[in-house]
């Protein structure tokens, strides 16, 4: 899978970006097909890796074969056979499997295999960080170094985590049904969120992760076009990512209301809105789709003042009913304040104080500061902004909150 690691090597100096992209998009289905046939995730991955390397050397010189996936599967399959040949006891059985003709005639199988590979990486025995790491590596084609860098851990640590994850799922077969789809969507959302708002560290965003999550969500949507939550998640990512370029300035967070809407990515907004409007009529919406609908309202509002907060509030009430959690209540409090005034918003916030899941979270303090500001209680607001600044683990967010706490306020 280390197609990217190759980017600085000699062999790939001649690999065009196009071939690199092609290899990266083919890698998961090739790996998926091999794992379906042979099991043994780890040796299949090694074999695919070697096949990708061979392709990155041969294709630029001799041209891309007519069935690139078939070529890779054949070459990787041969590597596996070679490996097994040396294991005398297994020789006969494995040779038969390894000698199967190249599967160039089953494109639909490849598609299923990509999805199954994704399901395999989200195996319930794995912790969420391991699911994320394995997905990024096996399906996303990111190198261990890239994943380690994105999550700010030493490469050796990430290599360990991935290797342990592979051990854990060693004997696991491909899951049959789509029962793991919620876990897959959650993993993609985690990857996106880590890329969009890094949970810690000096940079507000890690763009590559957000981009990768969108690419994978697109892929899942292509495979399961009829699933409302898949469409909802993809739309949510697109509509959120459309605002990316305006979310920070000089390392300081810029809140939604102050962002330059002219610089939002119109193409992403249109695509996201189309997904939402195309999916909503098809039945009762799930949590991702409702969140996408909320994001669509913000993205389509010509200015912060013209935001349809009444509609946003209705959607948050729906969300609070179908997927209740304190973060939703927190957002509902903001919408409530915008529609019915800050006092009602603050009253709703007060219901969260006893909730251990959020009581010590910086967002609660930050929102309370914001609503107190709206209510004209500037001194109290400062205190909560300071508290939020101490609790956040993101430097750009901390800087924003400290500035709010120190802001010169209008007299009276």
């Amino acid at each position, binding site marked *: 899978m280390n197609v990217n690691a190759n980017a600085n090597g000699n062999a790939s100096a001649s690999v065009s970006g196009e071939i690199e992209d092609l290899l990266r998009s083919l890698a998961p289905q090739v790996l998926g097909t091999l794992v379906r046939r042979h099991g043994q995730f780890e040796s299949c991955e090694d074999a695919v890796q070697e096949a990708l390397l061979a392709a990155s050397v041969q294709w630029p010189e001799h041209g891309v074969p007519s069935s690139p996936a078939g070529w890779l599967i054949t070459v990787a399959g041969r590597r596996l056979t070679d490996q097994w040949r040396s294991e005398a006891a297994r020789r006969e059985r494995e040779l038969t499997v390894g000698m199967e003709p190249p599967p160039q005639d089953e494109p639909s199988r490849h598609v299923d295999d990509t999805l199954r590979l994704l399901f395999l990486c989200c195996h319930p025995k794995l912790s969420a960080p391991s699911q994320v790491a394995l997905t990024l590596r096996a399906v996303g084609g990111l190198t261990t170094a890239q994943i380690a860098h994105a999550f700010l851990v*030493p490469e*050796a640590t990430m290599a360990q985590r991935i290797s342990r994850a592979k051990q854990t799922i060693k004997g696991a077969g491909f899951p049959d049904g789509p029962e793991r789809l919620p876990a897959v969507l959650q993993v993609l959302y985690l990857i996106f969120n880590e890329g969009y708002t890094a949970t810690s560290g000096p940079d507000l965003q890690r763009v590559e992760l957000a981009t990768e999550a969108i690419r994978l969500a697109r892929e899942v949507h292509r495979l399961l076009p009829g699933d409302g939550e898949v469409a909802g998640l993809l739309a949510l990512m697109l509509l959120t990512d459309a605002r990316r370029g305006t979310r920070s300035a000089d*390392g300081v967070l810029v809140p939604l209301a102050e962002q330059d809407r002219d610089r939002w990515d119109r193409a992403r907004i249109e695509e996201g809105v189309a997904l939402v409007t195309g999916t909503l009529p098809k039945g009762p919406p799930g949590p991702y789709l409702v969140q996408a609908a909320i994001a669509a309202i913000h993205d389509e509002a010509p200015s912060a003042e013209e935001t349809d907060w009444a509609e946003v509030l209705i959607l948050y009430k729906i969300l609070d009913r179908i997927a209740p959690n304190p973060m939703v209540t927190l957002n509902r409090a903001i919408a409530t304040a915008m529609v019915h005034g800050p006092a009602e918003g603050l009253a709703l916030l007060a219901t969260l104080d006893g909730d251990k899941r959020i009581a010590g979270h910086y967002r609660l303090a930050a929102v309370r500061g914001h609503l107190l500001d709206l209510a004209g209680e500037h001194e109290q607001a400062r205190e909560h902004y300071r*508290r939020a600044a101490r*609790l956040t*683990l993101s*430097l750009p967010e901390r800087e924003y909150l400290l500035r709010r706490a120190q802001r010169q306020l209008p007299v009276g």
Partner: protein
Amino acid sequence: MKYLLIMQVNQEILDALSEDERKLVMEGHGEFMKTIQDSGEFILTQALADPANSTVVSGTGGTPAVTDGPFIEAKEFMGGFYLIDCESKERAIEIAKLIPDTRVKGLSIEIRPVMFSCGADL
């Protein structure tokens, strides 16, 4: 010789910094890091979140007790650290003086030699 340069901070003093002062400190750290990276004396740095985010596991003689922060009584706490590898204690002091915190009254850097090292990237 490895030294840990411990940034002792004080919330009251941090809160009192103006936006410009904060910016100078932040940019100063960038400059400082570049200097000791270029000199080859830099190993790693970690900025720690506020102790309000801390959890403490303490020995009780039996089952360890887990308590939430903030737990500090002292005004000063460890805000983060630099791990460096340099020639001598004198050089470590010189390096510590380059850290912008030492230009802010009330903040300090503690220099402590390392006795044992082990880690993935060390």
